[in-house]
């Protein structure tokens, strides 16, 4: 037999002014199962809470109903109160008679009547409440960061700084990501390498950090606190533990015609290579597509010259399995492929380059040693045209991206400024649609490009670029001046839209993390939880969540790290006990629930059941992982047999509320 206590709060006059609290407590006292009905000025006060605690003990209450403010306000407070008195905290229901009653209604009689009905519904529900135990799930004290660009590096360093082990998985042979390819960074014009490479070295030297370079995530299972991840370490044909990074092999390799991916194909490298001087780890790797030893067994020069004996042509991909408590996606971005933009003659002229290629052409470690030369004839360009928004801000039906790539306005201003600074005799034109510079010192930077450096900013998109007689004929409109312009340029630089790395989509599937239509990872809440994925234990860092510049990326990387640290500092996670639970006897194993579960919390098990005449039957039944289930209840409605129910919001509980309200 239930022994329910009802406590009606006055909330000073907030409730008592429009609701006759005495009448409410009197009326509710008559409800079945109610053994005590009291009212008090402030239930949430110390005295009020003491009143509840004492009553629970003295009357051996089995359930508590508090008629007060919204449960969103004080449900947690009162759960603790109830727990202090030794009652399960989930044997409590709150009737919201303030926000949804006394504050809404003016008529005292009506408000009082409604408060009684809401109280009755809570009593009807609490009758069916069951004690719930918040589950505990252990936390593996190691994090995985997928992607070793500036985002991944910063996240890993911060996590390691807090004392937790962290692994970085990077698909390239070195960490560093896009930032290694940049020349200077806006708006301060520091050299990208100067600020990045120390961080890369920190990663390598930090004993808490393991770097899986030239590796990819192959499979992910498990859930928050205990993910199980398979990592594929791709064969580099060089023993990482033996190679000293001396680079002799990369000088002696006879295969010289390999397009250098680090310089975006603007020059060549050998078949065995170290991506760049400050690579981490500084270990050579053989490009199997070009190595003649690997292709047809002839050559072997690198093995001969390697004093350390690090070359191993028989190396195979290796699969490593590790456990992690948290995973951070930091898969970054790429500029879009510009071959669909031949109105700008990108594939017809080598002198039409993307902005990232331009970075390499300006970079001291780039193909031209930092002197800006046209790729076609290695001469100094005198007239340079920058085209903004190439492939950004397009309509959904078109070939480009619908979003603004965010970083282009600033890096174009940087490029224009650097050109004018290094080569004052060049004419630099920037064709823009809008110049977007929201950021600290950003607009000032852009204005300097215009005012101090004399860059010609022209509003209007370029209509066509055609290579002719060694020049690039640029046809555009100056919308403010009302003129059509024809410029004979030496070089055209296209600010290509950026898009998420292609590896992000399959990774999202493995992580059951959601993505938007552009393949950016979705955050748990666009404003309030910007670095968490809706999937518990998966966090987002950098451009994989949306276009952003370096300062923003680093800020988000540290934010993601702090979320990871918060998770890893717990020994176990307290789970929400209001999770789905299947009744195995009724479960058909039909997979309807699994199909609607946004978290992948449901799995199936073939289980033996007793059949008629002492037979046993093997039946497929659903299992809910309480650590993964977030308690939305989508499965409970999808379940045709009603085997799936939601603790704390069970079918019977809600039906009882409905009945009480409609009575």
């Amino acid at each position: 037999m239930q022994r329910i206590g009802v406590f009606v709060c006055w909330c000073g006059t907030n409730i008592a002014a429009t609701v006759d609290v005495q009448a409410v407590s009197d009326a509710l006292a008559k409800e079945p199962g109610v053994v005590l009905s009291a009212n008090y000025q402030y239930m949430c006060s110390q005295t009020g809470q003491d009143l509840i605690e004492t009553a629970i003990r003295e009357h051996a209450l089995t359930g508590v109903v508090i008629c007060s403010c919204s449960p969103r306000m004080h449900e947690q407070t009162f759960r603790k109160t109830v727990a202090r008195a030794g009652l399960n905290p989930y044997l409590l229901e709150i009737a919201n008679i303030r926000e949804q009653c006394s504050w809404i209604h003016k008529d005292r009689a009506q408000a009082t009547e409604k408060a009684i009905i809401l109280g009755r519904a809570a009593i009807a529900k609490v009758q069916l409440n069951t004690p719930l135990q918040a589950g505990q799930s252990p936390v593996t004290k190691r994090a995985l960061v997928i992607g070793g660009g500036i985002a991944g590096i910063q996240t890993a360093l911060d996590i390691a700084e807090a004392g937790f082990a962290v692994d970085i998985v990077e698909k390239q042979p070195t960490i560093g990501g896009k930032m290694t390819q940049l020349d200077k960074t806006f708006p301060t014009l520091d050299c990208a390498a100067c600020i990045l490479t120390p961080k890369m070295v920190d990663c390598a030297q930090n004993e808490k950090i393991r770097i899986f370079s030239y590796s990819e995530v192959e499979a992910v299972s498990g859930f928050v606190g205990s993910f199980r991840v398979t990592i594929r370490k791709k064969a580099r044909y060089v023993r990482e533990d033996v190679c000293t990074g001396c680079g002799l092999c990369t000088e002696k390799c006879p295969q010289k015609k390999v397009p250098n991916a680090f310089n975006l194909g603007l020059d060549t490298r050998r078949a065995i290579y170290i991506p760049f001087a400050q690579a981490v780890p500084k270990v050579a790797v053989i490009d199997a597509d070009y190595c003649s030893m690997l292709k047809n067994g002839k050559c072997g020069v690198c093995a001969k010259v390697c004093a350390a004996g690090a070359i191993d042509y028989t190396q195979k991909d290796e699969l490593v399995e590790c456990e992690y408590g948290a995973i951070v996606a930091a898969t970054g971005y790429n500029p879009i492929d510009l071959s669909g933009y031949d109105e700008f003659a990108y594939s017809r002229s080598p002198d039409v380059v993307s902005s990232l290629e331009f970075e390499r052409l300006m970079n001291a470690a780039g193909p031209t040693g930092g002197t800006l030369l046209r790729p076609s004839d290695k001469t100094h360009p005198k007239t340079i045209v920058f085209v903004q928004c190439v492939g950004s801000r397009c309509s959904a039906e078109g070939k480009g991206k619908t979003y603004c790539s965010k970083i282009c306005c600033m890096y174009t201003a940087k490029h224009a400024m650097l050109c004018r600074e290094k080569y004052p005799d060049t004419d630099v034109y920037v064709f823009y649609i809008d110049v977007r510079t929201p950021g600290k010192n950003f607009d000032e930077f852009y204005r300097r490009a215009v005012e101090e450096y004399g860059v010609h900013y022209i509003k209007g998109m370029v209509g066509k670029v055609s290579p002719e007689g060694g020049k690039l004929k640029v046809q555009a409109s100056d919308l403010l001046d009302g003129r059509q312009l024809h410029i004979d340029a030496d070089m055209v630089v296209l600010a290509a839209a950026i898009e998420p790395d292609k590896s992000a989509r399959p990774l999202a599937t493995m992580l059951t993390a959601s993505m938007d239509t552009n393949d950016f990872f979705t955050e748990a809440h666009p404003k309030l939880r910007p670095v968490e994925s809706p999937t518990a234990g998966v966090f987002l860092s950098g451009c994989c969540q949306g276009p952003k510049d370096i300062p923003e990326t680093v800020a988000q990387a540290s934010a993601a790290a702090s979320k990871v640290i918060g998770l890893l500092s717990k020994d176990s996670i307290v789970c929400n006990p209001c999770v789905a639970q299947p009744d195995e006897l009724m479960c058909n194993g039909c997979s309807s629930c699994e199909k609607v579960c946004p978290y992948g919390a449901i799995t199936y098990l073939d289980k033996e059941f007793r059949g008629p005449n002492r037979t046993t039957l093997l039946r497929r039944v659903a299992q809910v992982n309480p650590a993964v289930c977030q308690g939305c209840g989508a499965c409970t409605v999808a379940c045709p047999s009603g085997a799936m129910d939601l603790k704390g919001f069970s079918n019977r509980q809600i039906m009882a509320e409905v009945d009480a309200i409609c009575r």
Partner: protein
Amino acid sequence: MVFSYFPGCTLKNKGARLDLCGRRAAEALGFTLEELPEWQCCGGVYPQARDEIATRLSSVRALDAARRKGQSLVTLCSACHHVIRRVNGDMQRDAQIRGAVNRYLQLDTPYEGQTQVLHYLEVLRDVIGFDELARRVTRPLTGQRIGAYYGCLLLRPSREMCFDDPENPTILEQFIRAIGAEPVYYAMRNECCGGYTVLEPGGRAQKQAGKVLANAAACGAQTLITACPLCMYNLQKSVGGELPVRYFTELLAQALGLEVES
């Protein structure tokens, strides 16, 4: 290989060489062009206004006739190709136009864009193959520097025409190589010749076409080829440039060693 063939008005008259050489080359290459019976003029320009129905009907009649024969429909004139291809697209994608046209035509089976529309050049590229064409060439045009003039109608809008890369097309250059000549790239190969504005006073079309010719000549072209009688006319009448302009089928027939009477 048998195709339905829509020649169009101009090819029966001023553009007869385009048609005649095309047919003769087809015979030599082993595909048959069956002229549709009782075809009507395509209208010359595609009606961009979505509520223009009457101007779409003749194209749909041609498309439906090819469907009834179970054949793809081949065109040679750029303008006819443009109009018929786009109207076919309307019939596939635009329910409003499809409904209105079918209500008007009252065909036994409503036409919903089932016919495949091919340009003669697409037949060369996708059915015969330029490698095969090169093998069939008996009198290669070795040493000739030829500029491909695409104009507008074959290429744009590329979402509807799906003919070639609209900004960097290659099909005519591949053709030029296949007949043994050397293609010349020039900026204005996909720019407008002035089109029907030739009937407007002021000589704008002549000026526009002149720019094309001057650009091609500056880039070293000795001859231009085109698939469009109106482009041909405008280029020939242009002001400010002088270059011989030929239909691509004329050079095709020549390379295949065919003597085509004028």
